[in-house]
């Protein structure tokens, strides 16, 4: 009778460290309470599961950006990038994730999440006046976006290529034309494969145009969930959000509408099958088989408890049921919950100097969403470019 107990204890150390998705207050984030969300992230950073550090850092970085603390955001995204970009994994972590729960591993994000970290990090470096480091972040993001298992969907993030081209021009490096060409190819390919956007994208048609650039993360990104009989399949579902595109005015004059350069939902759904998916499916079969076998043996044993064979069947059946219960085939569904659904871009050629910029986010019917309107006094330099990141979130000042 001690053997089943030992079996349980043997499995517990590896199966006992399952890490769940941090309960980021997404509603507060969407409602513009960035201080509360940042505080949550900081608490998690200090006291939460270290395996989730990159998730909470990315959320914290977004809040810091929304609150206007770009320098702090850069350091935060940089730390997250270090975690997400490290390939090395300890043997213990691999064993725990394969034998026990997959979600015991350090969250490093899917390629689309790594690409979004690179996007935010590059913007922060640009604001620091370092377009070379901004391009370095984008190059890293392009490489990480290429980590998807399905080769045909590698390098299909037009946003990163286009920004890398713009950064190259800003610090006088070569390669801008190649990046612009790649951006066009990526855009055409992704739209042919059901991404949202336009083949005749005005931004990519004149990729070097404009001294005012608005980066517009819009909507709410996909949610990752577990599917399948044993929750062994990782799937994504789009999330509803009223904003779908944007338009802007400068000193009352229309600057036109935004163009999609990155469909985050599409990027998530084209991840392709992973090696871990195969392992989880195998574990699911094992979990089901041991459960069925264990149930049969326990039933047989209970019906013949007066015989030695019956007692043995009950013990073995019980052990199988314990193994089944302890085998976690569930997919790791931790994800970056505050990502946008798309990243859109609006560029314009405007006179240098101070201007009143108004950005309106529109719903599916083209109606402006007043609570998301941003009015900003901007300064466009006489040489160089002015870049602004304005998400479809309430302005920080709107909250007391």
């Amino acid at each position, binding site marked *: 009778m001690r053997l089943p107990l030992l079996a349980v204890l043997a499995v517990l150390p590896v199966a006992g460290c399952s890490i769940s998705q941090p309960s980021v207050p997404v509603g507060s984030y969407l409602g513009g309470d960035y201080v509360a969300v940042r505080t949550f992230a900081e608490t998690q950073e200090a006291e939460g599961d270290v395996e989730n550090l990159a998730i909470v850092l990315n959320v914290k970085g977004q809040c810091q950006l929304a609150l206007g603390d770009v320098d702090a955001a850069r350091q935060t995204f940089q730390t997250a990038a270090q975690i997400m970009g490290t390939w090395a994994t300890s043997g213990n972590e691999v064993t725990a994730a394969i034998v026990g729960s997959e979600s015991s591993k350090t969250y490093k994000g899917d390629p689309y999440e790594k690409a979004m970290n690179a996007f935010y990090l590059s913007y922060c470096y640009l604001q620091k006046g*370092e377009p070379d480091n901004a391009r370095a972040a984008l190059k890293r993001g392009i490489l990480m976006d290429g*980590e998807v298992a399905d080769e045909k969907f590698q390098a299909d993030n037009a946003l990163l290529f286009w920004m890398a081209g713009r950064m190259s021009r800003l610090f006088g490096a070569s390669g801008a034309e190649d990046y612009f060409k790649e951006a066009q190819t990526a855009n055409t390919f992704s739209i042919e494969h059901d991404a949202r956007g336009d083949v005749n994208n005005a931004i990519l048609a004149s990729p070097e145009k404009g001294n005012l650039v608005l980066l517009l993360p819009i909507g709410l990104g996909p949610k990752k969930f577990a599917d399948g009989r044993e929750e062994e399949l990782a799937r994504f579902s789009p999330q509803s959000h009223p904003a779908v595109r944007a338009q802007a005015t400068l000193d009352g004059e229309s600057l036109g509408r935004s163009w999609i350069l990155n469909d985050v939902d599409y990027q998530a759904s084209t991840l392709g099958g992973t090696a871990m998916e195969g392992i989880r499916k195998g574990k699911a079969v094992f979990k089901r088989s041991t459960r069925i076998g264990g149930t049969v043996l326990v039933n047989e044993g209970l019906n013949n408890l007066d015989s030695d064979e019956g007692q043995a069947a009950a013990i073995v059946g019980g052990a199988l049921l314990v193994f089944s219960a302890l085998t976690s085939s569930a997919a790791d569904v931790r994800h970056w919950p505050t990502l946008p659904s798309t990243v859109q871009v609006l560029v314009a050629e405007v006179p240098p100097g101070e201007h009143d910029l108004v950005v309106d986010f529109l719903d599916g019917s083209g109606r402006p969403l007043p609570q998301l309107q941003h009015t900003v006094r901007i300064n466009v330099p006489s040489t160089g470019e002015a870049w602004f990141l304005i998400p479809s979130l309430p302005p920080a000042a709107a909250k007391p």
Partner: protein
Amino acid sequence: MLIRSVTVGLLGLLLTACGSTRDTRVNPDAADSVTGTGLQSMDIRTMANRMAADIKEWGVLAPTSDGKLASFFIYEMVNESSDTINKMLVLTKLRTELFKAFRGRIDILDRSPSATDLSNAEQRMKQRGEVTGANNKKVFGSDFVLKGRMMSRDRQAGKLKSSYILVTFELTDLATQKLVWTNDYEMKTESERSVINR
């Protein structure tokens, strides 16, 4: 007895499995246990030491025969690689190593915007008589400028990737625009992605 020992052992393992941490002071010249493909502390230190020693050995910044010290400033480091880096970390370390290598027998100029601002503010305060000191010194001119450039070649296929990083430094004579010294530092890393991250 055996079963009891195994049970106690497994319980101990269970208790420690979820929570071992460390906080240790390590040698900055040791290989980084936090892995990744970028420059590590040992690279930055080695690079700075090596460049400072090489510049000194070449003699381009040596004082002239009449004892006049050579002057230079560090202009910038351009990062063309795929690895973001704090450029000031590299340049400041190099400047320090150069100063140490020449034992101060060199004029290193601070041409950063903040130095210009501070210098102008000090001059204004002296002009207004708010602080003591002469106000007739001119800003030093420079004989040379030191620049750096970091590039990388990244390759990725399946579960493997490699990253080759080349950091080049060059010293230019500002009177003649002649490149009087250059040297580089190379490093390469290879990584294999774990099955749990694929």
